[in-house]
């Protein structure tokens, strides 16, 4: 078995951890796994931002300062229940995600999918909704990176959102992202009224993508919206 990311052979050491807890396939080698840092310990109750290493003035009780700002806004208050992120968006994960989504190495979704499967068990929900790409961007990339990880997790996705074409999120500043008009449009293929929806995306940066998508779902009567993002 070769590592999905670096191609090195994976040598499985038999130990208590993998005897007791390994139910999934091992897809990454030790070297690569070591470089992925899981989000653990004290985190912001709303967005999973780790408090470790965060200056005191950016923490307000259970929340981080960014989330306090979102929640202070009447327009955004209560729109997103919470975001769960799995790994720190460090240099290594940036490289992995860049190869996955920008170079288009679809196979990596198998690993992300595995991880999604693991965390989704603890959640109660009616729909998994991938953050959509615009038609143009979808053609460019060849696949939607959020949808792919739901598919590879073997789960169903409900594509209840569409997206207008705009500048890449990663090329915008925080202010541009948050202040921008909503690029998401509701597409009436499923009824979300009274439903619990989980949004899925690869990265949570400022949270504005997730927030804008959540806004549209809330406006169409969703009962609650939370999100799972792979990296934070």
């Amino acid at each position, binding site marked *: 078995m*070769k590592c999905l990311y670096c*191609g090195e052979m994976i040598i499985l050491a038999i130990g208590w951890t993998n005897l007791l807890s390994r139910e999934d396939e091992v897809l990454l080698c030790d070297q690569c796994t070591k470089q992925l840092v899981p989000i653990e310990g004290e985190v912001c109750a709303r967005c999973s931002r780790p408090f470790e290493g965060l200056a005191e003035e950016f923490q307000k009780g259970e929340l981080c300062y960014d989330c306090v700002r979102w929640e202070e806004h009447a327009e955004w208050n209560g729109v997103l229940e919470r975001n769960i992120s799995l790994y720190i968006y460090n240099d290594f994960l940036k490289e992995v995600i860049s*190869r996955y989504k920008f*170079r*288009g*190495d*679809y*196979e990596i979704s198998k690993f992300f999918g595995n991880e999604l499967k693991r965390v989704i068990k603890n959640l109660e929900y009616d729909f998994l909704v991938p953050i959509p790409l615009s038609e143009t961007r*979808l*053609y*460019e*990339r*060849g*696949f*939607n990176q959020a949808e*792919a990880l739901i*598919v590879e997790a073997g789960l169903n996705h409900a594509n209840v959102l569409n997206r207008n074409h705009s500048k890449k999120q990663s090329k915008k500043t925080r202010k541009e992202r948050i202040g921008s008009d909503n690029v998401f449009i509701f597409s009436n293929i499923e009824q979300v009224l009274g439903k619990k929806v989980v949004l899925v995306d690869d990265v949570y940066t400022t949270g504005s993508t997730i927030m804008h998508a959540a806004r549209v779902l809330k406006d169409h009567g969703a009962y609650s919206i939370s999100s799972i993002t792979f990296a934070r």
Partner: protein
Amino acid sequence: MNLVNPLRNVLAGKQLLREEIPFELVDSPSISQRPGIVVEKKGRAYCNRCGNSDMELLAEFPCARCGKKCLYCRTCIMMGRVSECTPLYGWSGEMPEIDAAPLQWKGTLSDGQQVASDRVVEAISHNEELLVWAVCGAGKTELLFKGIEMAFANCKRVCIATPRTDVVLELTPRLQSVFPSIEVASLYGGSDDRHQFSPLTITTTHQLLRFYEAFDVMIVDEVDAFPYSVDPMLKFAVKNARKESSSLIYLTATPIQKWQRECRGGKRKFVTIPARFHRRALPEPEFVWCGNWGKVVKKGQLPVRLQRWVEQRLLAGTPMLVFVPTVEWMLKLLPLLQMFDNKIESVHAEDPERKEKVLRMRKREIPLLITTTILERGVTFPGLEVAVLGAEDPIFTEAALVQIAGRVGRSVIKPSGNVTYFHNGKTESMVKAKHQIVSMNKEAKVKGLIDE
């Protein structure tokens, strides 16, 4: 202005993805398309860009472009995705012209260089393959000048490819200065010259993946260097980037064993430059046994004989490189050596200060640099002497040891110096390395290429 020309310059001799072409594609019969992935029967397929045919590295994905399950190549994914529905664009129309470009160089070739230069000219004019086996410090670049000039005069497009980006960066200004009438294209990950058509392209072997049947003359420098030596994709890239009828010149100081055998057996055309341009013999390595040096170092001590070697040179102010097998040993050795001089430093591949430290070494601010094989090639420090600790380690191949010895005695001012392999048991690589150096010196003497 004719709009076709810029497009032609981008596409001539290339195999590009649509995203890599910065123009609208006009409807022209001169634009050629080849399939990105070729699917053969019985579940076999290969990538037309990088040659990969390992089905483990050809994966399927639900493609939003073609709406089907589409096979894509994971081997060359870092250059953008090639899939079944991705065409590789090229140019099948008339090629941009190549004009004669006179060589502007005042220097003279050494006798050894002259012989090799003549052979290169011959190989280029007859579209032949040739290995130039030139010792470290022979002056490999200059012996290419004449051949390149002649290639241009015969409308031939030339490429110099190398596995190492730093070699591209070093060669570009040198060749640009001797061929001032042309614009040299310099290609490496992140360079700006991608869309330029040039009679002379200097590139990393990776960037050759964007070329297809482009070059009449292909020169591969440092052909035994990593990663070219171990990556079949790069060998494919070199082959794919050449025209069917073209010359292929390999340059190296340390050909692999197989090639050496082929040379001796008359199965490979080659020419040697056994002596340096300054006409002095190559320093021959000394072997010094120092027992289980690892145990000594772990106890926090230096092997006595290495310590003496270092102390003498610190006193004399001789700059030193000490090579060790791994980063771990490097870090263990550093504090031990720093007890003798706290300006001593270490450097390895991932070191963020790598460039700075090499520069400080050159300025003589660092008296001794402990390093891994990363500095075995391409660095020149005047007056340098080198030691290898743990020369028996398999990382020190014959080629690595010859290259390491090749760091010493390169300047005219100090054309000699000491090379010592400290070991815990002689290896075949050590013996072969020494033998290679000794026989080059012998050959040079016989041919009258060195003065004693």
